[in-house]
């Protein structure tokens, strides 16, 4: 292997700016630059401009005259608002400068806290921005869930009413689904991927920042649904209800399109990074299991999400330009939406499940001090799940009047997918087998995932059977099933991941007592909330309906009170998060869990360029329990000396001569 060392002045910022671009990097007050405040101004300005154009175009349309609902103006407001938001954060600066032939302004490494409010090229900052972003989604969706459970306290006396209730359910479902697609890919995927594969950057740092600020743009768009009258369709947005719904439906369609854009770009970026930016020696059989899970997830993001974006665009056209993609009488088909939506929607289930298994797959060897059992089987299982997930979508339509002959086929494919899922599950069980477990907080969350997902998975096998599905379709049984998989799996994994990697991400240790309190309340009351809903579903309570049979009130009340306590557990997390990170920070040890992971071999805080030199990977990260395991990597410099790497002038890099080398500076 030929290794060439180049001096710093040849080195660009993570955005691959040429030296003259770096030379033009601005070093002025952060508040005179683009930041979230200017983004908000841009969003409002774009919204107003879009609305004005919409009124000019369609203000005197007969439909607008008749019902007062100008969908053109709403969609253009949201579209221009998003463009203004991205302009205000500086997202268009680079492409626009390139388009007019000017050399873009670069970014200097900064430790000022204002970088968390800006369009930045540092994947670690973007990762932390994503943490706050997904928590914003999570808590918004959680508050809406509290509203749902409050309405269901009594079958007769109503606080919210039927219209408001379905709007609440729809908004909750959509916000949570949007959040769940990015809850791991965004924060942990962006923060950890380069560190885990020995790269000094993401493949496309600007696209990474673009995906985050697009994600937040989508959040704001979906929130506008409520002032626009909400949408009555649930998160699935079925036509023809979609076509005839009020203005909130435009927010749903535009919001999903924008979020989809963020998901696609995030997926491409992580996939490109993993494929092209691995350090020498980081062979496919050595990449961490989390990276495998992220890679398989990105394949779903790249190939399934464009279908959602286009389906949403068709819906927008039906509502604004009066096309008829989903209008049966005019040559379209409402089934088209259902098919396109679920062609994305079911792979999305695995977009949410796979990263969770990747996270716990990282934790189990650390806390059992055993190698990851059947690593290759686990990786194969993840690829198998990703592949098969494209062939199961019609099981969501068993009860919709599809050709009955299609049912057995999709029942079979759905049941088939439980096989690779079983592989992944067995990797966890095999690792736990006869191990001495350290019950640290992250490990508690990992174990909880296996418990919860078992219930979610087994109920899923039942639901894949046509006779069961047609019986419990649209009931709380289905609702409880997917909450067990998504919240019981992914959200538990996310919190486990946060507790596990937070010391690395911030250099601060979260309070252990508060963390355990958070875990136990969350685990117990998650099950108290959702297990009764399996029962009321079997007893016939329908989803998305604000009333129910009187005899189900006891179970519903038990679930509602449990949901309140479950919600309060997140307040403990927030307090711990703020207290331990900002108000009373406690420095974390360099490697508090004793992990062999490459990310833990870097200094804390991690330098701007991650590694002072590109590491050479020597072994896989799971060789626990061996008497004298080889080091994971040759980092080239003693740990700690890399602190100097934060000095931009002192940066050096390794260039690799071989094709497929890890860095193209």
């Amino acid at each position, binding site marked *: 292997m030929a290794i060439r060392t180049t001096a710093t002045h040849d080195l660009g910022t993570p955005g691959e700016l040429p030296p003259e671009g770096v030379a033009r990097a601005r070093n002025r007050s952060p508040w005179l630059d683009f930041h979230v405040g200017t983004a908000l101004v841009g969003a409002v300005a774009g919204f107003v401009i879009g609305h004005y154009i919409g009124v000019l175009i369609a203000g005197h349309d007969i439909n607008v005259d008749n*019902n007062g609902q100008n969908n053109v103006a709403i969609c253009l407001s949201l579209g221009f608002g998003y463009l203004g938001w991205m302009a205000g954060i500086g997202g268009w600066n680079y492409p626009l400068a390139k388009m007019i032939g000017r050399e873009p302004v670069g970014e200097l490494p900064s430790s000022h806290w204002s970088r968390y409010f800006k369009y930045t090229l540092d994947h670690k900052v973007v990762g932390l921005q994503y943490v706050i972003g997904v928590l914003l989604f999570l808590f918004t969706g959680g508050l809406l869930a509290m509203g749902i459970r409050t309405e269901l306290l009594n079958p*007769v006396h109503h606080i919210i009413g039927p219209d408001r209730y379905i709007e609440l359910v729809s908004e909750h479902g959509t916000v949570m689904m949007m959040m769940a697609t990015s809850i791991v890919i965004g924060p942990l995927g962006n923060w950890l991927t380069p560190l885990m594969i020995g790269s000094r950057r993401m493949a496309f740092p600007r696209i990474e920042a673009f995906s985050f600020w697009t994600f937040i743009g989508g959040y704001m768009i979906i929130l506008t649904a409520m002032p626009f009258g909400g949408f009555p369709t649930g998160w699935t947005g079925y036509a023809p209800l979609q076509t005839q719904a009020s203005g909130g439906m435009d927010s749903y369609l535009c919001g999903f399109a924008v979020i989809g854009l963020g998901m696609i770009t995030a997926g491409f970026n992580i996939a490109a990074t993993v494929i092209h930016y691995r350090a020498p020696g980081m062979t496919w059989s050595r990449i961490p299991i989390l990276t495998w899970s992220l890679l398989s997830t990105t394949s779903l993001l790249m190939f399934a999400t464009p279908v959602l974006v286009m389906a949403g665009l068709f819906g927008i056209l039906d509502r604004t330009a009066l096309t008829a993609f989903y209008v049966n009488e005019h040559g379209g088909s409402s089934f088209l939406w259902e098919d396109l939506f679920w062609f994305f929607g079911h792979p999305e289930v695995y977009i949410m499940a796979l990263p969770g298994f990747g996270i716990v797959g990282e934790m189990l060897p650390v806390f059992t001090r055993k190698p990851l059992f059947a690593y290759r089987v686990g990786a194969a299982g993840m690829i198998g799940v990703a592949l098969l997930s494209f062939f199961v979508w019609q099981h969501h339509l068993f009860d919709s009047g599809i050709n009955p002959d299609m049912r057995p086929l999709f029942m079979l494919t759905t049941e088939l997918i439980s096989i690779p899922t079983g592989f992944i599950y067995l990797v966890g069980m095999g690792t736990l087998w006869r191990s001495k477990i350290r019950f640290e907080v992250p490990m508690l969350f990992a174990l909880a995932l296996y418990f919860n997902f078992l219930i979610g998975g087994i109920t899923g096998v039942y639901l894949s059977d046509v006779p069961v599905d047609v019986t419990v379709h649209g009931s709380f049984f289905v609702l409880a099933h997917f909450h067990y998989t998504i919240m019981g799996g992914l959200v538990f994994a996310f919190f486990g991941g946060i507790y596990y990697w937070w010391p690395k991400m911030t250099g601060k240790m979260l309070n252990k007592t508060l963390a355990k309190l958070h875990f136990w309340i969350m685990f117990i009351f998650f099950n108290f909330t959702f297990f009764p809903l399996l029962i009321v579903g079997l007893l016939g309570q329908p989803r998305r309906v604000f009333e129910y049979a009187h005899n189900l009130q006891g179970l519903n009340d038990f679930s509602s009170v449990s949901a309140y306590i479950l919600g309060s557990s997140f307040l403990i997390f927030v307090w711990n998060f703020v207290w331990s990170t*900002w108000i009373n920070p406690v420095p974390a040890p360099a490697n508090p869990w004793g992990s062999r992971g490459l990310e833990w071999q870097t200094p804390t805080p991690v330098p701007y360029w991650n590694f002072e030199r590109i590491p050479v990977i020597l072994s896989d990260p799971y060789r626990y329990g061996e008497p004298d395991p080889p080091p994971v990597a040759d980092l080239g410099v003693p740990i700690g000396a890399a602190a100097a790497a934060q000095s931009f002038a002192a940066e050096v890099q390794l260039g690799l001569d071989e094709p497929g080398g890890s860095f193209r500076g």
Partner: protein
Amino acid sequence: MGRTARLGVFFSLLGIAIGLCVFTAMAWIGSAPPTVSFASSQPKGAPVQLHLQTVGAIGTGAHPDWVSYLTQEPDGHWVGTTEWDIPASTVVDVTLDEYDSGSPLRNEYLGLVGAATVGGAPGEGGVIGGLENVNGKAVRVVDGYSGNGIAHTFSVPDLGINVPLPGVDGSSSKFCSEPAPCPTSALHNVITFSFKTPASGVYRWQCFIPCGLSYLYGNGGPMATAGYMAGFIKVVS
């Protein structure tokens, strides 16, 4: 910044966040249509006098172009709502002033009085006598293809109530074109009928004529929003 200052900042931000959430929730819940109560002021056993209007466009509020029902409160004040508290086991005498234009029915079955019941025979629904009075004339069936057609219905499926409301001439110079409530000088039909409330419960009622103008199939907008062409009868014991 010291620890106390950080705590101050945190709790200030938390307070703002909670305040925003509470404000949003209250504004959102508060935007639901009000309930007119006929239960509290009603002498026990006396019939409830329920006076309603249907108008082509309500003219005010968030959706001024939407077709809507209005309710007259016991004090004579008109409100744009479709939700009422009514005592149980009580006769309700409904007077309905219909100011909107009509059209033929897609489903002529809806022209039968009291027919919107599950399993019940036409004329044997919850409307007392199986008859409605249109401008003083008792009718059992309204023909959607005669006159000005049918504008709306007042239908409560769980109570077996279906009352078709004949429309008025939409091209007449006396057609109500001002914000609701429409004055009695405007062209309108007066429909009266009675029904008896059952034991306590919440009963959804709905106009069954797809009248959400410029919505796909006519079923969006006012047809899908409580306070316009749908609502709830809350029968209280």
